[in-house]
């Protein structure tokens, strides 16, 4: 079977600097695999080891963002694909999903897409649902465990960890799955594989390769302003002659406000 893991590359948190307009300064940022996508990579590798076939790690970004892709290959992905084009620079979640959907359709034989529940930079959490919608495939989100993937029966059974319940969901393949933290423990790159993948250049597909125009990739929503969040008002200090007086004043205040 052919599994695709969508892996976003995000800034290592301590490497981020802000521009004067509070946007992120992209220069000198160290890229890492988005936390939740690392679990997706591990999950993809584990099912690929079980069923064989291909595991393609797919990422979007600058043409030289290859280090983390190689890292996923050294963990055990069998193939890689980088979507890179100046036209992708300002895409929003919807545009990114449109581009990735086009790439998955172009790959042709994909049975299962796994990705993280959200990215740790933009935090929209909408990528997996948007991708499923573009592909017209079922989506299983917030997955804490994949019970089974059956390539012959073309079905997947997975547990969704919701706020108060765990749902077990069965779906036909192909499907899009988004995983949560702690679904597994991601492995380290294998030293044996590091040697093999260190010089691999992933294939790069542009917007034209995907048949996408600038209009397809234009953000649906536009940023109009970016200002610091209002500061939280500070708390009120209770004063009093001694501890007993302070406690009495505090309790009276809590009663007044119907807190107790």
């Amino acid at each position, binding site marked *: 079977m052919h599994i695709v893991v969508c892996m976003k590359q995000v800034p290592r948190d301590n490497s981020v600097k802000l521009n004067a307009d509070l946007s992120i300064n992209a220069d000198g940022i160290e890229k890492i695999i988005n936390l939740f996508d690392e679990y997706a990579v591990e999950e993809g590798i584990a099912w690929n080891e079980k069923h064989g076939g291909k595991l393609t790690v797919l990422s979007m970004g600058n043409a030289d963002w290859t*280090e983390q892709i190689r890292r996923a290959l050294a963990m055990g992905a069998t193939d890689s694909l980088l979507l890179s084009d100046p036209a992708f620079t300002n895409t929003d979640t919807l545009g990114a999903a449109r581009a990735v959907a086009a790439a998955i359709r172009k790959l042709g034989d994909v049975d299962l897409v796994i990705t993280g529940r959200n990215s740790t930079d933009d935090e929209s959490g909408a990528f997996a649902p948007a991708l499923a919608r573009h592909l017209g495939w079922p989506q299983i989100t917030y997955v804490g465990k994949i019970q089974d993937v059956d390539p012959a029966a073309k079905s997947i059974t997975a547990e969704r960890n919701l706020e108060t319940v765990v749902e077990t969901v069965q779906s036909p393949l192909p499907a899009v799955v988004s995983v949560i933290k702690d679904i597994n423990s991601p492995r*380290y790159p294998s*030293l*044996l594989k*590091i*040697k093999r993948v*260190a010089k691999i250049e992933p294939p790069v597909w542009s917007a034209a390769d995907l048949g996408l125009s600038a209009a397809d990739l234009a953000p649906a929503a536009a940023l109009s302003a970016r200002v610091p969040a209002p500061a939280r008002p500070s708390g009120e200090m209770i004063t009093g002659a001694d501890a007993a007086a302070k406690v009495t004043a505090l309790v009276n205040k809590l009663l007044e406000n119907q807190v107790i």
Partner: protein
Amino acid sequence: MLDLTAGYGMFLSDEHEMLRRTVRDFAEREVAPHIRTWDRSGGEHTEGPEDRPHIRPILKRMGELGLLGICIPQKYGGAGMDYLALAVVCEELERVDSFLRVVISVHTGLNSLSLFQWGSEEQKQRYLIPQAKGELLAGYCLTEPNSGTDAVAMQATARRDGDAYILNGEKIWISLADIADTFLVIAKTDPTKGARGISAFIVERTMPGVSSYPLHGKLGMRAGNTGGLVLQDVRVPLANRLGEEGEGFKIAMAALDNGRYTVAAGATGLIQASLEASLKYAEERHSFGGPIADHQLVKRMISHMVRKLDTSRLLVYRAGWMKNQGQRNTRETTLAKWHATVSSFECADDAIQIHGAYGYSDEYPVERYLRNARGGIIYEGTRELQELLQADFALGRRINPPLRCELPAYDPTEWGG
């Protein structure tokens, strides 16, 4: 923050960078959160075998990751990377704690590389392969209670008896003494012949007459295991003699060319850790109306750390490059070891100074760096021995004649698999 390992493209490639990131992730995730507790656990004087619960599991993890056979060809169970990769592993491990690097020094540098250099094919099959895979852990036994730098004064003996040798003696300051499965033991086969009467043996812990005991209360390296090894009428088969009879001193010294290299690389990692801690703290702590990083005498300590970091790293990588080429590197390795270990102690000391009173407590890691750094100025060749060696090389009083078995040059095709 400044990338302290950037700019070494003349030595390192992308695979070294991936390796560095992998080892750093491992050390930061699996060791750093626990290291203060592990370090404290080694301060107690206790009787009996080493049973501190963190030691075996973390060694097992290092084996699983392939770190223990990093620069051993894949056909011998290793990762098939080069000698510079060995340095990168040591830097990144000691950046978190020295005890991790010590494991690489004794298991990989002193023991496994000696088997790779001097061992028969049968010995490589039997010991090197499981050691490179981390299935067997290995130690190195040269120092004795009454002989250190003057190794030829050792008292351990190996008496030939038919198709075996009978070993007797005591070795001390042995890293992994209570943990390792096999030891490279240096002993006298002919006490009348000085350095030429010394031979090397592969001794298994399970051989009757082998026992060990732990040492506690060391100044540093408290998270690891150091101890003594007692050999009492231990019958070691002839097949377990490494090299020829009388070749043991050369083997022991050649082993140190590799052990010292790992110590030098590790000390470089310790310098980097001291610098990183200092950079962070100097921006956080304020005095006289600004961060202490604004003060010139703090800046001086930082700039000296940077100088020592880069010079140590360059010396280490030069020695590693020479190993890759198959060139004899005793002079370059001992220079790197001398400079990097002495510098690491000075940098840890300055790091404490920058941290002020906080640096004097274990609330911050820098006091541990200082304690750990001190040992490197003693073991695997004292500072004083390295000084004498450098002078003798410069004066032409010391040359290194070719060895019967040189450390194999790195061969990317042959080693890869």
